[in-house]
């Protein structure tokens, strides 16, 4: 017993120093989050990313491991974010045929929705006295997280805060969306779906697909358009405002 203790500690030190530990924790936490999400019939409250982030934070806290140390290993997952962003071209391309039939209403609604999203979030946060780091990270929060983080880097605000705000926005949109749209008396599935995609990107899109396939199709189109237009217009907007 006594002789085994240092050996285990040695192995432990070795493993936590290699990328393997961070990779296993990241994937296992996501796997668990995904399992809960499926078990609860894709309830937006059981968002797999939110669950994974909380679990990993707990593990790091319990093990007294710094975020920097964790990220050294997890950066291999992080790297693929850019690749996944490029891959978003394919679903956007699939939605392109329906875009052609309703190009003008969809573009007008997207631009107005996007502007309101930024103006209201930034306005309220400024009015309530949030600091500049938080306000800056709110600009791209309705854009799908991988693109939003790219925009955040260009705005020189924290991609981490932006990712967190984007995930929370997605969850809120998925939870509140149907309720708001019913209250407004919205009947057309394409309009309901598109509104969800503009406001709540990927998480809203997944919710829209669960409600109705046509809503899901338009939500994913909205998410793609918001991603591209957001990446072009938000840095310009920020340049003129700040």
């Amino acid at each position, binding site marked *: 017993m006594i002789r085994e203790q240092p050996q285990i500690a040695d192995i432990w030190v070795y493993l936590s120093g290699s990328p393997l530990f961070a990779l296993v924790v990241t994937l296992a*936490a*996501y796997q668990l989050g995904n399992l809960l999400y499926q078990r609860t019939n894709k309830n937006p409250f059981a968002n797999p*990313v939110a669950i*994974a*982030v909380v679990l*990993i*934070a707990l593990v*790091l806290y319990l093990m007294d491991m710094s*975020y920097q140390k964790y990220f050294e290993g997890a950066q291999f*997952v*992080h790297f693929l*974010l*850019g*690749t996944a*962003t*490029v*891959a*978003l*071209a*394919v679903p*956007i391309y*699939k939605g*392109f045929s329906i875009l052609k039939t309703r190009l003008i*209403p969809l573009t007008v*609604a*997207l631009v*107005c*929705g996007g502007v309101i*999203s930024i103006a*209201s*979030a*930034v306005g*309220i946060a400024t009015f*309530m*006295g*949030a600091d500049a*780091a*938080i306000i800056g990270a*709110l600009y791209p929060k309705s854009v*799908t997280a*991988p*693109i939003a983080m*790219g925009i955040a880097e260009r705005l020189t605000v924290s991609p*981490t*805060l932006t*990712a*967190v*705000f984007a995930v929370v926005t997605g969850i*809120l*949109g998925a939870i*509140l969306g149907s309720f*708001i749209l019913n209250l*407004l008396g*919205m009947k057309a599935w394409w*309009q309901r779906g598109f*509104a969800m995609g503009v*406001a*709540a990107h990927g998480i809203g899109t997944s919710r829209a697909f669960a409600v109705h396939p046509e809503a899901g199709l338009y939500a994913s189109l909205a998410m793609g358009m918001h*991603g*591209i237009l957001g990446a072009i217009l938000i840095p310009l907007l920020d340049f003129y405002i700040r």
Partner: protein
Amino acid sequence: MISGLVQILLWQGLGELVSHFLIPILPGPVLGLILLLVFLILKGHANSSLLAISDAFSQHLGLLFIPAAVGVILFLPQLKAHALAVITALVVSVVLTITTTAVILRLIARKDSNDP
């Protein structure tokens, strides 16, 4: 699937080059996305390996931003200090965004259907 991944990585590389030399305001991956999208529209179809890899990525897109999102632990004191402002901003903003988008779509669609 591997050939799809190679294609994506090449577009990503091209996007990075365009971002670095021509349009620094746009992130490389976003330019890669735009270039690939234009290519697909011009070509008229996406090959099966590209479809396979993009399905794999979009199904588990959430996994890829976990490492960055865990960084929220560094911002906890800051977020706690401004918790009310952040929560109010996020909730009101998402409600207004859904409302604005939906109402504008309905207005334009209604106007269109009234026209002969």
